[in-house]
């Protein structure tokens, strides 16, 4: 009896602890509109000059802003002014860009400012931010994007390469604040992609006070002008919390949309941002992310790299079980191309286009698409993905057709009949299940023509190291665009033996000359024709085996309004709204 009562007491204690645990909740405001998202990768920080990965950039653009951005609801993507009043005036020679900044824009309130209150943004802040990218002490890899392009910037950088201190007050000829709100860039030569570059995250404005105040830890203390604020970022915590910026300028929800996106105009004209708070949970594993989404604890689930996408998306729509719960699918074409890269500078591939063509012909792209993407991806015929000028829907790459007989012919012409005499080719992939499976699939395809492949899994830094040291023979890789210009992809083949890029080590004089001509032209029909010509040249050289252009699936709950995924447009969350009544109603179905 005594023992029984002891067990009873123990059971009661356990029950009490469990009930208490269920009742414990972080306090949250009533009727507060909270958007809950996830990231599968740790966020590296918030310094625009230093972050370069997709996940960190997505977080940073909630806080930081640049001169330009992309229209939220227009496709193809269209540049619009953000902190600038309008698009810049450009000189006749295409070298001088003059911007006028919005007046009254304030940095977030922060301890880095003398009064704790954010001061007004001025043109000098942009001069400082761009100089920071060039400052050798900041170690921004983004400098390579603007290197040699802005007058005097390279010389300014070189001057401070070996000094202990960088003098930001020293003028740079091509980077001037004409007055408090006027900013002028002078380029060394016309650069058609310049405005796209200014819309990239690394050109976002940062206040000098914050950089100096936080020193080495500036990347963990975001202070911008954006729609959301963050008190401090601790990379160790798996949770990021943003609050609506109380001093955010009067920015409104767009009132125009391209065809097919008109239904997203319900909040047209409303002041942004539309939610009070954003919470991002860092959850590296797929199962908890997916379960939390199904539970309704996460509003938006980006499942582009998740295996679950194969289970829940059939024929470009979501399965009925999710539809019943009111889950919506946003399936936009990602500006991304996946391919099996070839180290064109290594034997046996060097100067052997026929061998490379043989591999391309032996790859069964259709089966690959069905197996790994439920057939939802677009077979890549060239490096340029859909949505960019230079992409031709009907273009057929003569060496991207699954044709074993022709592949064998090319292999024999390359000097390796039936693969005889050809060494085992290593294919380096990332050490995750999907990439290993994709590698094995490629291996199986190549067995069809007698080419032996050995799949080598690597952790990502190891793969990068091998690529930089040119130690791979082949490697699987995807390349995504930073801005909507095919130049972003075509540059992978331009004198790539001189840079790290995608590890292709490709160098073709004819290609280089045509590339230089095309990419120095403003967007035009003539330039598109040259881009197409570059594509055809690449098809003949076959420096990579193209696989697919993937769509980017994102699931969101019915209570999430105005959601539209974009690869380029930063700070998407400012446009998103939450319908609290609908949330209650839909959650009742779970």
């Amino acid at each position, binding site marked *: 009896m005594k023992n029984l009562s002891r067990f009873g007491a123990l059971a009661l204690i356990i029950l009490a602890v469990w009930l208490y645990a269920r009742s414990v909740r*972080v306090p949250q405001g009533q009727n507060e509109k909270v958007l809950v998202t996830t990231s599968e990768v740790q966020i590296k920080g918030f310094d625009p000059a230093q972050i370069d990965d997709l996940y960190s950039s997505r977080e940073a653009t909630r806080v930081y802003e640049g001169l330009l951005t992309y229209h939220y609801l227009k496709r193809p993507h269209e540049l619009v002014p953000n902190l600038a009043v309008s698009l810049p005036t450009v000189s006749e020679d295409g070298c001088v860009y003059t911007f006028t900044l919005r007046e009254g824009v304030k940095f977030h309130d922060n301890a880095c400012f003398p009064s704790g209150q954010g001061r007004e943004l001025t043109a000098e802040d942009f001069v400082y931010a761009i100089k920071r990218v060039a400052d050798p002490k900041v170690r921004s890899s983004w400098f390579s994007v603007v290197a040699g392009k802005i007058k005097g910037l390279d010389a300014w950088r070189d001057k401070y390469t070996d000094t202990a201190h960088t003098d930001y007050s020293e003028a740079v000829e091509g980077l001037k604040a004409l007055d408090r709100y006027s900013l002028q860039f002078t380029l060394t030569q016309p650069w058609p992609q310049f405005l796209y570059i200014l819309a990239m995250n690394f050109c976002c404005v940062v206040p000098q006070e914050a950089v100096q105040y936080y020193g080495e830890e500036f990347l963990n203390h975001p202070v911008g002008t954006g729609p959301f604020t963050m008190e401090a970022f601790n990379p160790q915590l*798996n*949770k990021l919390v943003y609050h609506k910026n109380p001093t955010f300028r009067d920015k409104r929800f767009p009132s125009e949309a391209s065809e097919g996106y008109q239904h997203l105009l319900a909040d047209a004209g409303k002041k942004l941002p539309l939610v009070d708070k954003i919470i991002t949970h860092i*959850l590296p594993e797929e199962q908890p992310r997916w379960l939390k989404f199904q539970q309704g*604890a996460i509003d938006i689930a980006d499942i582009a790299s998740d295996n679950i996408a194969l289970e829940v998306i059939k024929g470009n729509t979501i399965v009925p079980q999710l539809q019943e719960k009111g889950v919506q699918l946003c399936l936009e074409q990602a500006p991304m191309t996946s391919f099996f890269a070839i180290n064109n500078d290594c034997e046996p591939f060097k100067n052997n286009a026929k061998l490379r063509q043989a591999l391309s012909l032996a790859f069964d792209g259709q089966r690959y698409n069905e197996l790994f993407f439920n057939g939802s991806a677009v077979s890549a015929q060239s490096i340029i993905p859909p949505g960019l000028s230079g992409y031709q829907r009907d273009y057929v790459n003569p060496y991207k057709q699954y044709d074993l007989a022709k592949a064998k012919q090319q292999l024999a012409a390359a000097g390796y009949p039936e693969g005889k005499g050809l060494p085992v080719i290593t294919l380096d992939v990332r050490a995750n299940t999907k990439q290993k499976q994709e590698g094995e699939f490629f291996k199986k395809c190549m067995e069809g023509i007698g080419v032996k492949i050995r799949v080598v899994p690597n952790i990502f*830094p190891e793969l990068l*190291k091998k690529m*930089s040291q040119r130690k791979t023979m082949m490697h699987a890789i995807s390349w995504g665009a930073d801005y909507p210009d095919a130049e972003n992809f075509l540059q992978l083949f331009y004198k790539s033996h001189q840079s790290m890029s995608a590890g292709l080590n490709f160098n073709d004089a004819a290609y280089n000359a045509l590339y230089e001509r095309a990419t120095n032209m403003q967007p035009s029909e003539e330039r598109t024709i040259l881009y197409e010509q570059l594509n055809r040249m690449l098809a003949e050289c076959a420096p990579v085996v193209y696989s697919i252009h993937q769509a980017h699936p994102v699931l969101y709950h019915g209570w999430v309004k105005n959601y539209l995924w974009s690869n380029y447009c930063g700070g998407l969350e400012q446009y998103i709204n939450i319908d609290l009544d609908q949330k209650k109603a839909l959650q009742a179905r779970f």
Partner: protein
Amino acid sequence: MSIYHYTVRRLFYAIPILIGVTLVIFILFNVVAGDPTLTLLGRYATLQQMAELRHELGLDKPLLLQYLDTLRSTFTLQFGRSWSTNQPISQMIQVGAYASLTLSVPAFVLASLLSIAMALLAAFFRDTLLDRSLVVISVIMMSVSVLAYILFGQWVFAYKLGWFEIAGYEYGFPYFIPYIILPAMIWIVLSIGPDVRFYRTIILDEVHQDYVRTARAKGLANRTILFKHVLKNAMIPIITNLVTQIPSLILGALLIESFFGIPGLGNITLQAINNSDFPVIKAMTILSSMLYIIFNVITDILYTLVDPRIKLN
């Protein structure tokens, strides 16, 4: 020999161990691991920038000098800042240790109490159905992979039944409590299997000793024999097992932390490996070695307290 002298002597012995550990980790990082400059600089990195960064991080120095730097930071405990987050590593360890300990301490205490209680029960009722059942359950618990427990627990108890949080973590008491219950339960289930079998074997060894027979002959109650005599005499291996587990409580559990999104030291280590963040990898490795050394010394000292026959010399 006094405890003080013994401790100093044992810590002195730790020096070659630490040198060995740093050497192994240094060789692994320099031979096997990826190039950190690429991870740190991103996809637009130029070869020149990579060379500059290598210089700044001291990676272009002769290997011997680099190793001496590693040794210096080991013995001064100045690990500097993380290459990927720029945070002081000591601060990272502090924050991570808090999260790891909030999960591991309650799980460890409960798992240890339950294991000892179950082992005593099995030994007390040895060769009965209860004993056999406990042994079989322990073997089954040991045989199932940690991943299976996690996936099943999250799916059934957290998602389907809604009893617990699926994943996540909140800093500060009491907000972390809902997030640690399910992972702590999994931790307990994982520990109980091997612990019960181990403790049962130890206790059974003691149960067959002469003094137990004597106690029984004197008419002492079974419970008194078990708790007052058997348990006390079985304490040395139990202490060894318990104390040597303590470093792993601080260092966290990689898989559990990763699946439950708990920002503990296990998570930090995993991220550091993925980012080739050598200073953090180095700090975590050295920290774990030191903890194991320190807790081994503590185990030895505890032996003398439990059993006065044991002398430190």
